[in-house]
């Protein structure tokens, strides 16, 4: 029974969705550990965002964990927390998923990147505490993988 429970836990991957402030989020990807942090801003109701989630999941799975870490930051409204949790567990998402707990987008958008218009999806890449690339708009698998490869070979 216990092993069944554990197996279910492993299969369902990361089902917890932690609420974070912008500062807490920045702390997670600002580490000087040679890992490329791929930070994607999305929401459960955003069709192009949901469309590209599998590519991020694949990247998280296929690249070595000591080289690449995917962080999916949901901008769903606070009251949609349960919807977000259900979405993440149903899809058995294995990447780290955070729920951003900030209301003033005019402040946090510019802190992420001054060229970000605020449209989602948007993705930022960080390495050793430095932003190495910002991208507004969606990716396909090939684009995402080649960007990760290139940024990691620098």
């Amino acid at each position: 029974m216990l092993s069944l429970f554990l197996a279910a836990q492993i299969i369902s991957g990361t089902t917890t969705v932690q609420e974070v402030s912008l500062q807490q989020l920045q702390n997670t990807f600002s580490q000087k550990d040679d890992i490329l942090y791929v930070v994607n801003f999305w929401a459960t109701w955003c069709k192009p965002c949901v469309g590209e989630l599998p590519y991020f999941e694949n990247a998280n799975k296929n690249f070595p964990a000591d080289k690449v870490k995917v962080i999916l930051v949901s901008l769903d409204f606070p009251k949609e927390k349960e919807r977000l949790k259900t979405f993440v567990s149903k899809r058995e998402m294995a990447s780290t998923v955070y729920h951003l707990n900030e209301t003033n987008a005019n402040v946090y958008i510019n802190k992420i990147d001054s060229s970000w218009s605020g449209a989602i999806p948007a993705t930022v890449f960080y390495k050793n505490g430095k932003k190495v690339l910002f991208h507004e708009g969606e990716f396909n698998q090939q684009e995402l993988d080649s960007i990760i490869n290139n940024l990691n070979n620098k």
Partner: protein
Amino acid sequence: MKNITLIAIVFFALCSFKQPGYEVGDNVADFSLPSTNGKTVALADYKDAKGFIVVFTCNHCPFAKKYETRINDLNKKYEKLGYPVIAINPNDAAQYEEDNFENMKKNAKAKKFTFPYLHDETQAVAKAFGATKTPDVFVVQKENGKLVLKYTGAIDDNTDSEKGVKEKYVEKAIDALLGGKSVETASTKAVGCSIKWKKA
């Protein structure tokens, strides 16, 4: 070398996404678009207006939905002061059926829009403005017969909850213009749904 070339190609491909669009202080070109009320609307039709609140919005986007009432309230407050709301939906209906012209008509009726809700089917107006998402606001003022962009960005500082709003950016901008002052915060940002551009 190969890597550098590849990075250059990727960067170029990503950069070409950017819309140029208007910046604050730029002259804005008039347009003529069909409205859900059956008329065709151009800014030149509003002879007595002092300016306009041009809002790119749509039916399907949850951020746009959150602002429907607030956009209606903006029009109720500022139309009589010379700044009517002109709402424009630029989304490709082939990607979101909810955003087609028939559904726009239904939404305008159901939500009792007091402002014209226009369909930018060719997306030319959204491109000219450099709109990137819904909702995206542009406050324009008439100056010596020209239309000049005075404010661009968000409606206020809290999309999720109107009660939680601390700063009403659009209202502040128009109040300044009505008082003959310059707009203090002329550009802000908000999260929104990316405009669904037609696929080439």
